[in-house]
């Protein structure tokens, strides 16, 4: 037997497999993609379809059993006043949280993208990411203590002689309440705090990609800094803002823990789904409720696309 044949056999099965993959690169891609495709196709999309199906069933009020007949009556129930209230409340909260996050996040992201260098940049990432490392529940409970009637905010307000301001805020209709931790103001503050990293990071990434010479070119063509901002920086950062707002909006839309811990007793969509599928056993209505955020997000993305938010991508 020649030495060459021996060398050829050295790799054995492994080499043979390599040869097959080399000759057909598509095969390897298929093998690598198969597990995630199965996961997304069966587990993710499959359960989503199951959920959609459930929403077209209805609950027999008498027996409390699910009637497996196709009907739109469950969706009809969404239009009842109490349920519309839940939807409007949740969407309004999500929109306000998103707006506040965008307004607060933009200057931070702008500073980080354009000015922060070296250790300042590291500090920025640390400051933005660190809250994400700690448990969400711990942060929410911490906020409950901060916002409670006997909490640190009340204490600071009295120390500064600002109790009148706090009381004035709490006396406001709808958004006020007995204390910050039992009001929409409190829920709003905690939402903004918890989701803001998801707004800062995409905006920062978008701004980071704006070449400095575009800003110089704009100035060179006669634009004052404010004009450069609106005509160049803002449009180029818009995909980042939209990406961030998709996070903050959908996360608020579906959250059921924050409004339960900090806030008044009026339900948001997530809480409604939680109680309907749990204690109430009304899976069809719970499913119909979960379809609402999906429809809203679909509409939101469609609007964003129409407004040209993704043109630069």
């Amino acid at each position, binding site marked *: 037997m020649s030495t060459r044949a021996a060398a050829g056999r050295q790799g054995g099965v492994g080499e043979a497999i390599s040869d097959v993959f080399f000759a057909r690169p598509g095969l390897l891609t298929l093998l690598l993609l198969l597990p995630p495709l199965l996961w997304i196709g069966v587990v993710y999309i499959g359960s989503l379809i199951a959920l959609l199906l459930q929403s077209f069933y209805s609950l027999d009020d008498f027996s409390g059993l699910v009637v497996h007949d196709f009907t739109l009556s469950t969706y009809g129930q969404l239009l009842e006043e109490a349920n519309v209230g839940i939807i409007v409340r949740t969407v309004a909260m999500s929109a306000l949280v998103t707006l506040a996050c965008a307004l607060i996040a933009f200057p931070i992201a702008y500073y980080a993208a354009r000015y922060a260098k070296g250790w300042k940049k590291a500090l920025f990432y640390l400051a933005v990411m660190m809250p994400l490392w700690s448990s969400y529940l711990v942060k929410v409970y911490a906020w409950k203590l901060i916002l409670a009637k006997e909490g640190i905010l009340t204490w600071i307000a009295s120390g500064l002689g600002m109790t009148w301001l706090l009381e004035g805020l709490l006396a406001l209709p709808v958004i006020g309440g007995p204390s910050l931790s039992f009001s929409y103001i409190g829920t709003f503050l905690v939402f903004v705090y918890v989701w803001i990293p998801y707004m800062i990071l995409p905006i920062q990434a978008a701004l980071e990609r704006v070449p400095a010479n575009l800003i110089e*070119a704009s100035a*060179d063509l006669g634009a*004052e800094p404010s004009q450069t901002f609106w005509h160049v920086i803002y449009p*180029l950062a818009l995909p980042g803002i939209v990406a961030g707002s998709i996070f903050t909006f959908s996360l608020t839309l579906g959250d059921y823990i924050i409004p339960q811990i900090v806030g008044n007793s009026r339900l948001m969509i997530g809480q409604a789904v939680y109680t309907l599928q749990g204690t109430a056993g009304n899976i069809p209505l719970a499913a119909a409720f979960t379809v609402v955020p999906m429809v809203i997000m679909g509409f939101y993305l469609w609007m964003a696309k129409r407004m040209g938010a993704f043109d630069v991508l």
Partner: protein
Amino acid sequence: MTSPAVRFQNVSRRFGEVKAVDGVSLDIAPGELFAMLGPLGSGKTTCLRLIAGFEQPDEGHIEIFGARADGLPPYKRNVNTVFQDYALFPHMTVGENVAYGLMIKGMGRAERESKAAEALAMVKLKGFEARRAAQLSGGQRQRVALARALVNNPKVLLLDEPLGALDLKLREQMQEELRALQKGLGITFVFVTHDQGEALSMANRVAIFNEGRIQQVGTPTDVYERPRTRFVADFVGSANVLAPDLAGRLGAGPRWVSLRPEKITLLADGQGAPEGWVSLDGRLASASYQGSVTRLAVDAEGVRITAAVPAGSAPIVTGSTLRLAWPKAAMVLLEGEP
């Protein structure tokens, strides 16, 4: 007497410890096609940015058509720039890019669109309004950048390495077009380049920069034929820079002298040098054929001398002895200590 288009009065610009521009004084005449030539980090680009207003001088003053410019931000100067990588706005169409300056000035849509179309026609991109920068080739982007600057009718147009990113064929074509455009418009063009061939072929006058200072300003013929310093002799074209002792023996100096390779001719064996010429015997170290000329590296008197002779003018055998000759006047005395 009209004031110069751009005047630098003893301008310096520091970045930390580094003096990027060091005491530069310079007048650029109206309607001139002016080149700033120098190696990387020589201060030429900083000078361009000082005119544009992206940088402000630490010392000295800059005037644009007689008006003090230092302290003015870029958006208050009637000067426009064609950036090295064009800096076209990716979220706008070609038409919107070109009309940007007019839009900022508050010109109505119809008027600015027609002006943008005119500017695009001028750079031979008629009908490209609706395209996006990403859909254009490098040469087309360059033209858009040019139209975007020129549509504002600037007093001075600044071009930062305008041809650097283009391939050779396109570069030669754009050189021609830029020259024609400048001549037609009569606007002062100032361009920065590290390519001496480009500077010499395009510009009316050239300033040669090194280490933040201007080494020489003059017409292309001036700086090529009569380099003032060793740096200029070496950087503009290629030159033999002869040391003072050798130059002295050849009857020039004793000073550093510059001798262009193409001034040197080969003498046949036994042929004497004509009146007013000097000759030198040497050994041929290597020869490289470059189409129209052959470059010879000749070792003579302990130095290597490069000569460019017409291709095929002599049988070239490495190691053979050659007699080089050139007119005395071809040796240009350079500034600096002997």
